[in-house]
């Protein structure tokens, strides 16, 4: 093969001139086509984290319960009785922007493989989605396609989708986000790592055959800004086949249970190159792969194409030669492929052969570990970087079904409830099987967190995924801290204590100073919040270059958390009983800055109040105790749309009215009645409490140093909230109609 490589070739593949020079230095010669393709992918942002790795070092990763931390296919935490819960969130943004159904479907397929690659059976999927406003045809197409794709894959493979979140904001119009999180369960002593080991052991590819789909996905799609005319990139989007994955999943779990594998790794971005490279790197060994032995679905693939194909539903395993026959027989029984394509060597090199003839030879370390890392050049923007549009009047006319004064708090409440960011997402989550597996004790929207029973450990877990890009855009540090607090609040409402966190950092182009500043501040916020709450980061994913000629997306760190609780029967839902009192617990200090109302009024601007991390952490501990002891009847954290929306959501869940008075909050925090009704901020949880338990609960909060205010009670058939003469009074049926109006926008 020619060593001549034209100068433009490496640029087309996304490598800079200095990176290319570095490759020639490391090899001592020019790379050939196979080697250049391999480097271009493993040295892409998506695989090498070259703009984020230095920042990620700030995150706390240690914890008593951590079984596997960052660096493995997924993180894992101990849940007791010899079992661990594995979990990870990952993005599939650019593929979904090109083809939403397959992009989202294969996003789910990929994160499932990450989890069963460590020997855990997937037991839940959650998703975090961002699109432009639903008024846009394109956003509706992307939203509907992504939801259908997630459902198609998860439903077909028999893993429940138990939770998630969706936001609609203009900066995602041209660059939607599709993040999927998978949670798995394993016996701790049966978990497996990905490090290759054992000279002479065989490298076996399992699952689907290899085709041309997804060639170059990692560099062409994942690490460059999207441009107009990206339809031409459609062949780079992978096609998912959940049936193939279902067989592969069962087969892999059986192989692990029978102890037939030395190590296991999924084939994701950059295909064989990345999987073989990472397995060799972690094991400190070399690997020889003969591409002629890889089962192909079309006959004439070039060696470089075999090495970088992103065909889905494939796994790579290291197998002792004496166990190969059993592995192949098991795969045949599950009607899935298996072929020995190479072996472990002591060379420290990844060698690519074609029918025994060498066509590529690179040092594993150079490929995997020596990609140059870049420092960011952060600069705080001098003004609000994004747009503003006034839509409140229109929303009031639409959502409330009546025209009213845009200053009328009752009309505002209905407008907020009907805003797609606040409204019920039933239209989406009913397309997901949330019950398969027989573990789901709290389904979507029944509670702030999904609750899964884990009889294997004798308890249960709660899971949640959160992130509000708009608030992070207002203040990347505070907004990211809030995302972590909100996720922990959702868990606390179920009585769960966080065991670990996974995150997906979705940002624009980090080579631009303002985006670099967002990323830098957000990671600092993530680190501070995790430290304060004592939650280790066990894994994650970074998705940069989410940016088009129209500008960057809102900076969107998405955090997923897993917590444990002793008794799922006591995990609280949203619905209090008639006559219950309503308490606001925590340091919640509402502000209209960055709120849904500020968005609807076109009044977004930089800046958020600094989050009260320590007081929020104390309140979380208090809430957990109260829930576990069964002292409350309902719990709901205050988030989008503020306290009025939180109360309305509880009323809708209860099927009863609410009578509340926020004057004590106005007095305590200052600000206007309006900001107390609709202002947002971290650290607020509304509890439903039986009338005879209120006094002792308030006293207990006082002793714990946690603020608790009695707001009112569940009564009547209206949502009536007094707030410094800005009184809300809306019939429950009207509020519910507004909150359930999402499907009307589609």
């Amino acid at each position, binding site marked *: 093969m020619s060593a001549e490589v034209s100068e433009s070739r490496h640029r087309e593949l996304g490598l800079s001139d200095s990176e290319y020079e570095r490759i020639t230095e490391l090899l001592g010669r020019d790379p050939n086509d196979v080697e250049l393709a391999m480097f271009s992918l493993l040295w892409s942002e998506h695989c090498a984290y070259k703009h984020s790795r230095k920042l990620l070092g700030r995150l706390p990763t240690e914890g008593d319960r951590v079984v596997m931390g960052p660096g493995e296919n997924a993180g894992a935490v101990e849940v007791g009785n010899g079992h661990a819960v594995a979990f990870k969130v990952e993005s599939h943004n650019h593929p979904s922007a090109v083809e939403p159904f397959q992009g989202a479907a294969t996003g789910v397929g990929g994160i499932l493989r990450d989890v069963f690659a460590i020997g855990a059976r997937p037991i839940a999927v959650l998703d975090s989605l961002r699109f432009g406003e639903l008024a846009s045809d394109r956003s509706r197409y992307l939203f509907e396609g992504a939801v*259908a794709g997630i*459902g*198609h894959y998860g*439903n*077909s*493979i*028999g893993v429940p989708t138990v939770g998630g979140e969706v936001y609609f904001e203009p900066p995602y119009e041209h660059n939607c986000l599709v993040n999927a999180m998978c949670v798995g369960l394993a016996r701790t002593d049966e978990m497996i790592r990905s490090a290759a080991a054992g000279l002479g052991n065989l490298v076996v590819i399992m699952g689907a055959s290899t085709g041309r789909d997804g060639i170059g996905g990692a560099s062409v799609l994942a690490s460059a800004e999207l441009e107009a005319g990206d339809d031409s990139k459609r062949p780079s989007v992978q096609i998912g*086949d*959940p*049936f*193939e994955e*279902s*067989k592969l999943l069962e087969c892999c779990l059986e192989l692990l249970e029978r102890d037939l594998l030395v190590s296991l790794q999924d084939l994701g971005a950059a295909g064989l190159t990345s999987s073989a490279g990472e397995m060799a790197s972690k094991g400190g060994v070399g690997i020889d792969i003969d591409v002629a032995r890889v089962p192909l679905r079309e006959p004439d693939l070039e060696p470089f194409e075999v090495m970088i194909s992103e065909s889905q539903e494939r796994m790579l395993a290291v197998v002792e030669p004496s166990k190969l026959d059993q592995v192949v027989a098991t795969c045949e029984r*599950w*009607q899935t492929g298996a072929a020995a394509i190479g072996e472990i060597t002591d060379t420290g090199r990844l060698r690519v052969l074609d029918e025994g003839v060498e066509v590529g030879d690179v040092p594993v370390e150079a490929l995997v570990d020596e990609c140059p890392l870049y420092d960011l050049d952060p600069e705080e923007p001098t003004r609000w970087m994004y747009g503003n549009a006034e839509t409140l009047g229109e929303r009031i006319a639409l959502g409330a079904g009546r025209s009213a004064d845009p200053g009328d708090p009752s009309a505002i409440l209905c407008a907020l409830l009907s805003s797609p960011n606040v409204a019920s997402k039933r239209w989406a*989550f*009913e*397309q*997901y*099987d*949330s*019950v*398969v*597996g*027989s*573990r*789901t*004790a709290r*389904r979507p929207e029944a509670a702030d967190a999904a609750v899964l*029973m884990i009889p294997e450990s004798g308890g249960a877990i709660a899971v949640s995924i959160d992130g509000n890009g708009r608030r992070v855009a207002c203040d990347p540090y505070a907004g990211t801290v809030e995302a972590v607090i909100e996720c922990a609040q959702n868990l606390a409402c179920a009585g769960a204590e966080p065991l670990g966190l996974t995150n997906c950092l979705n940002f624009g182009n980090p080579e631009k100073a303002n985006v670099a500043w967002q990323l830098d501040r957000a990671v600092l916020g993530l680190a501070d919040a995790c430290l304060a709450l004592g939650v280790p980061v066990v894994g994650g994913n970074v998705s940069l270059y989410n940016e088009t000629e129209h500008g960057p997306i809102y900076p969107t760190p998405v955090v997923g958390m897993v917590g444990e609780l002793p008794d*799922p*029967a006591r995990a609280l839902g949203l619905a209090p009983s008639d006559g219950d009192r309503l308490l606001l617990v925590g340091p919640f200090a509402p502000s209209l800055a960055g709120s849904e109302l500020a968005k609807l009024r076109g009044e977004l601007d930089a800046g958020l109040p600094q989050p009260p991390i320590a007081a929020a952490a104390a309140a979380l501990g208090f809430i957990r105790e109260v829930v576990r002891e069964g002292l409350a009847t309902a719990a709901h954290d205050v988030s989008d749309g503020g306290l009025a929306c939180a109360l309305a959501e509880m009323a809708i869940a209860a099927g009863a009215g609410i009578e509340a008075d926020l004057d004590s909050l106005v007095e305590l925090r200052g600000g206007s009645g309006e900001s107390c009704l609709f202002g947002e901020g971290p650290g607020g949880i509304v509890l439903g409490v039986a009338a005879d338990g209120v006094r002792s609960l308030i006293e207990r909060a006082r002793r714990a140093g946690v603020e608790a205010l009695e707001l009112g009670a569940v009564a009547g058939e209206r949502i009536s909230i007094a707030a410094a003469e800005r009184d809300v009074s809306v019939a429950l049926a009207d509020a519910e109609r507004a909150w359930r109006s999402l499907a009307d926008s589609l």
Partner: protein
Amino acid sequence: MIGVIQFPGSCDERDAVAAVQRVGDGRLVWHEETDLSGLDGVVIPGGFSYGDYLRAGAIARFSPAMEAVARFAAGGAPVLGICNGFQVLCEAGLLPGALLPNEGLRFICRQVELVAEDFAGPFASEIGAGERLSIPIKHMSGRYFAPDDELDRMEASGRIAFRYAAGQNPNGSVRDVAGVINEAGNVLGLMPHPEHAVHPLTGSDDGLALFRALAGAPRAAAA
């Protein structure tokens, strides 16, 4: 012992075994097994057997295990088909009618109320006519269809086992039909998932009645 058939692509087979085990003994039956002689009853579970390529249930009906199930059912033993299992039973001709794509052309997962009709046979032993059960549905192709004259005959002969409660038909099924039985009363198919309604914490335990009926059915002649 109740056997739960496991096809490649089945999703709810382990849940079905767990549901059976709440009231009796259960085990998985691999789709290539043809000897069902040790079993007292069979569940054909939900999922996407063989990927549901071509049409839901269209490939699974040709599997070795299904040929054995047909003989098993002909011998009078109870067979319960859930969701994909219902689709397979219709494809195999063990039950009348067909399951078409949902009216809204979307997958739906939702807790629904069923109303038991007046039907006979082993599955009726634990459920009285008019009884309401809260059981989840989750499917893409659950719209039951049979021609009007056939439906008339089925209604007249007590072969409609379950209907969706008024106003709760999620998929456009004709005459709100959610489940049907065969003439002999030993083969029941339904779209809702009773195996996901066996624990109050997951929403309801109304589905247990069907598994109790299955496990308690008098032993039929071996297939």
